[in-house]
């Protein structure tokens, strides 16, 4: 019998493709000197709210916060895992440990959450507005490496 995920995945596999042209490339620094941020599409919020409000492109997540809520609207993924351990979606404690061990240079001051099923946002919005704004926010903090996590 197909797993539950096996029933969900086909439904998201035929989403319309996008064409951003040639894949861009930015050379990564040595990991030991990299300043690393997490960008997640899990719709995490730092304010105790559970909804992604209209017009909200992304939220910033202070690196010290752990009391985040999962505001993603979809029922079609396991939610108990992140309820038990935030790191299974947002590996912030792992990054802190890697920084203390000298594996990475440092952890960004803040991270970024989008919500993967934004009703009122298109890829064009992300490409022209919210995406560049998120990039600027991270670059202004000295970030040079980003780990992206879905949910």
């Amino acid at each position: 019998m197909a797993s539950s995920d096996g029933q969900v995945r086909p439904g998201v596999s035929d989403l319309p493709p996008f064409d951003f042209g040639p894949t861009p490339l930015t050379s990564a620094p040595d990991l030991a000197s990299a300043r690393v941020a997490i960008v997640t599409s899990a719709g995490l919020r730092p304010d105790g709210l559970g909804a992604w409000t209209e017009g909200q492109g992304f939220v910033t997540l202070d690196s010290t916060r752990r009391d985040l809520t999962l505001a993603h609207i979809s029922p079609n993924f396991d939610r108990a895992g992140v309820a038990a351990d935030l790191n299974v979606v947002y590996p912030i404690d792992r990054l802190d440990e890697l920084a203390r061990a000298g594996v990475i240079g440092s952890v960004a001051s803040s991270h970024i959450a989008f919500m993967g099923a934004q009703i009122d946002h298109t890829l064009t919005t992300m490409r022209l507005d919210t995406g560049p704004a998120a990039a600027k926010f991270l670059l202004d903090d000295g970030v040079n490496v980003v780990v992206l996590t879905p949910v």
Partner: protein
Amino acid sequence: MCALANILEAAGLATVAISLVRSQAERGRAPRVLHCEFPLGRPLGRPNEPAFQNRVLNAAFDLLRRVDVPVLVDFPETIVDEADAPLSCPLPLRNDPRLHPAVDEAIGLMPAYRRSLERTGRTGVVRSGGADRVAELVAAFVRLEAGDDWTVEGAPIEIGAAALDLRAYYEEAALGLADHVPAARQAESWFYRRTVSGDLLRQVQKRLRSSGAPRASWFALAPTGQQLARD
């Protein structure tokens, strides 16, 4: 994720994306993607297993050296959900026969929910007024199941939000009852297949779908793998 990776990389950030849906990653052509055949909702694989999570992160960071973009690499370990093996944990005994069984059950799980909240410091019961309102939420779904007009209970999005809160309350209570973190979707299957409230949500979803109610009112009541067949 792939679209965002392309945008951030173009802006001057070196990116590596974790993928949970390989076909999307193939078409997204992001610079560097580590595909993890893990349950949806668990991109780092295993909750409360830092060593495993570090293996995933290390594999992702290894891709940063690559300049032959786009790069798509599979993480060598796979994890599948266990929706077909609902979590085994006790349910409250019937306490107040004057209450609907679902309301009685929800109230009985409050100590387990609070244990979980104390342990994690976080809760997903945040959309409809918090855990203290859970009995009211269940009562609203009881009315919907009995045939109430859905428009009486609020906007479609509010019904969905109440369902997500009710599910979060039960799944967090399950974490408070179990002595381990369940495999993916085991707590979900326990809720929908073993509890009165979970079955209630499935019945309400079926009823709303059959009655032509807006998708936004029933979409979040149960995930695809837990929905009842329509008549």
